[in-house]
């Protein structure tokens, strides 16, 4: 994963709460075995509607999505994160998130900014007032700003996620360095091995 420190870009006001991962990327897109190319499927059912915000020319090329409450609930599909990033989003702003979605975002370097509902509303207003306004998310200082409007807020992020984003750490690489501890744990592990349960064709022994 690439380190992420500053994200600068324009915003898109989604103005919807309870945007679940089935809306972000409908399941027909989940048949693919690749990790790329999901941007075309992002919000695909809503994009058929010409009035949908992502179809408005003034928001083309924006990289910060301003969502509502409970963004990314539902299915665990990491495809939702891939779709948002493939489309060009680098950060999401919302008042709350689905747990698994937030986790998946951190693994991919998609920054999830959590603000109070009223601050999200304000940000929506600022973006709608002038869609060309630049937004700045600073992962080191944990701030989001609209410099041109003199608007700034702090947001919380657990220190581990922040560090991971800033360093671009590969979680798996980190855990693999714990090989010795894992092996030691396995000596007393009670996990029942399946080797004695099924034969090589999966039939119960």
């Amino acid at each position, binding site marked *: 994963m690439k380190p992420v420190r500053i994200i600068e870009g324009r915003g898109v006001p989604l103005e919807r709460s309870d945007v679940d991962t089935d809306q972000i990327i409908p*399941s027909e897109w989940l048949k693919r075995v690749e990790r790329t190319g999901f941007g075309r499927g992002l919000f695909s059912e809503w994009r058929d509607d010409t009035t949908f915000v992502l179809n408005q020319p003034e928001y083309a090329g924006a990289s910060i999505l301003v969502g509502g409450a409970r963004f990314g609930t539902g299915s665990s599909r990491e495809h939702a994160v891939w779709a948002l990033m493939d489309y060009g989003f680098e950060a999401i702003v919302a008042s709350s998130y689905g747990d698994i979605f937030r986790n998946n975002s951190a693994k991919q370097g998609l920054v999830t900014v959590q603000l109070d509902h009223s601050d999200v509303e304000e940000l929506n207003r600022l973006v709608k007032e002038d869609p060309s306004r630049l937004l700045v998310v600073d992962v080191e200082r944990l701030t989001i700003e609209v410099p041109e409007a003199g608007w700034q807020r702090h947001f919380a992020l657990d220190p581990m996620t922040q560090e991971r984003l800033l360093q671009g750490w590969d979680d798996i690489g980190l855990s693999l360095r714990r090989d010795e501890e894992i092996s030691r744990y396995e000596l007393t592990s009670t996990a029942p091995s399946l080797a004695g*349960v099924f034969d090589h064709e999966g039939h119960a022994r």
Partner: protein
Amino acid sequence: MAGKTLYEKIWENHVVVAPEGEQTLLYIDLHLVHEVTSPQAFDGLRLNGRGVRRPDLTLATADHNVPTSPLSTPIEDPISRRQLEALDENCAEFGITLFPRGHENQGIVHVIGPELGVTQPGMTIVCGDSHTSTHGALASLAFGIGTSEVEHVLATQTLPQQKAKTMAVVVEGTPPPGVTAKDIVLAIVGRLGTGGGAGYVIEYRGDAIMNLSMEGRMTVCNMSIEAGARAGLVAADETTIEYLRNKPGVPEGAAFDETAERWRTFVSDDDAVFDETVTIDAATLAPFVTWGTIPAQVVALDGVVPSPDTAVDADGRESLQRALDYMDLTPGTPLRSIGVDVVFIGSCTNSRIEDLRAAAAVAKGGTVSDRVRALVVPGSRRVKEQAEREGLDKIFQEAGFEWREPGCSMCLGMNPDILTPGQRCASTSNRNFEGRQGRGGRTHLVSPAVAAATALAGHFDAPKVPA
């Protein structure tokens, strides 16, 4: 010192290392894999020259993409076929046991774990699927993960985790006749809301929960994620132990009794303290139906479609209105007067033998309404065969239900079983999101008994309960 919750006990048993200021590295006892969320993870392993640490703690099945038409019919969608082939290849390459389409042990991942006895009390279980919470019914800590985490578990058999808060959801008393496990969990989701459980692991407690069968407990734990909680648990008791006896994955004879003794310890201590407690009086419950596009939008079957004015703020009004528009419903309409086009009995929420028995008891001797297409999709081949031994397939078919091969089917639009735009469906699945069952489809979540009665009536209905 206060006692420990079940969650804390399982957590502590699985700590590999807990470095100061970092996430705890948790050992994973069982990793369940299916075709949708794994191909990119296996690719990641190959790219980095990594292997699967414990193929013997990893088990794969094909479920989301498989057609539920007879096994002799080919998989027509080339992209689905490719994904299933990728699972075959990946499991062969990394030495993972796989139950492909047609295999005697194949089925929905959350149905086969418990029925094969590989889900056991005290274990940590993960799967790239949010309904992994189902396995918590057997007192295991089970939660859904994303594909990056699937890759992580494949490579290390561990996951870096933050400890969750604990919530006790206590359902006390005796539910009125006709109220099923599905109605209990719909009531819980309605009460907590879709975000109420976020950050928590829920333990379901109280006599209305402990009196449920294993299948019923699985239905409840299954929908924990619909309340925002990654995991739901029920303490181990004699129901759990009797359910597991003689299952392929558990020891036999004296060894079983020894293991069962250990399982009995997977309960919260009497003096354990939960961060949050929610109590529900079972006597207030009724058969429920969702009317909207999030699972918390629940009303009693005898109720009416709510008005947006019931929302607390303008935002809420707007989202209720959007849900009403999508569902094509008018406030004040009695649920019982709403006609349906499709009835789906299946999914990891309600496709186990007990669910099929409940639906068959209602369907027996009846006829599916002319306006309805009704599907029954067993959760696994083992469930299907059991049902056929009991003659349930005949009951369904004689009443005009389709009897299909096991898989996720119409729970989500990834296989040929989908709604067409505008179709209204009474479904025993777990998500009524826009387009979940196919683009433009309208989903109402119900119990198997309500689904079967609705299929016969052509509109929402429940079986008559003896007075």
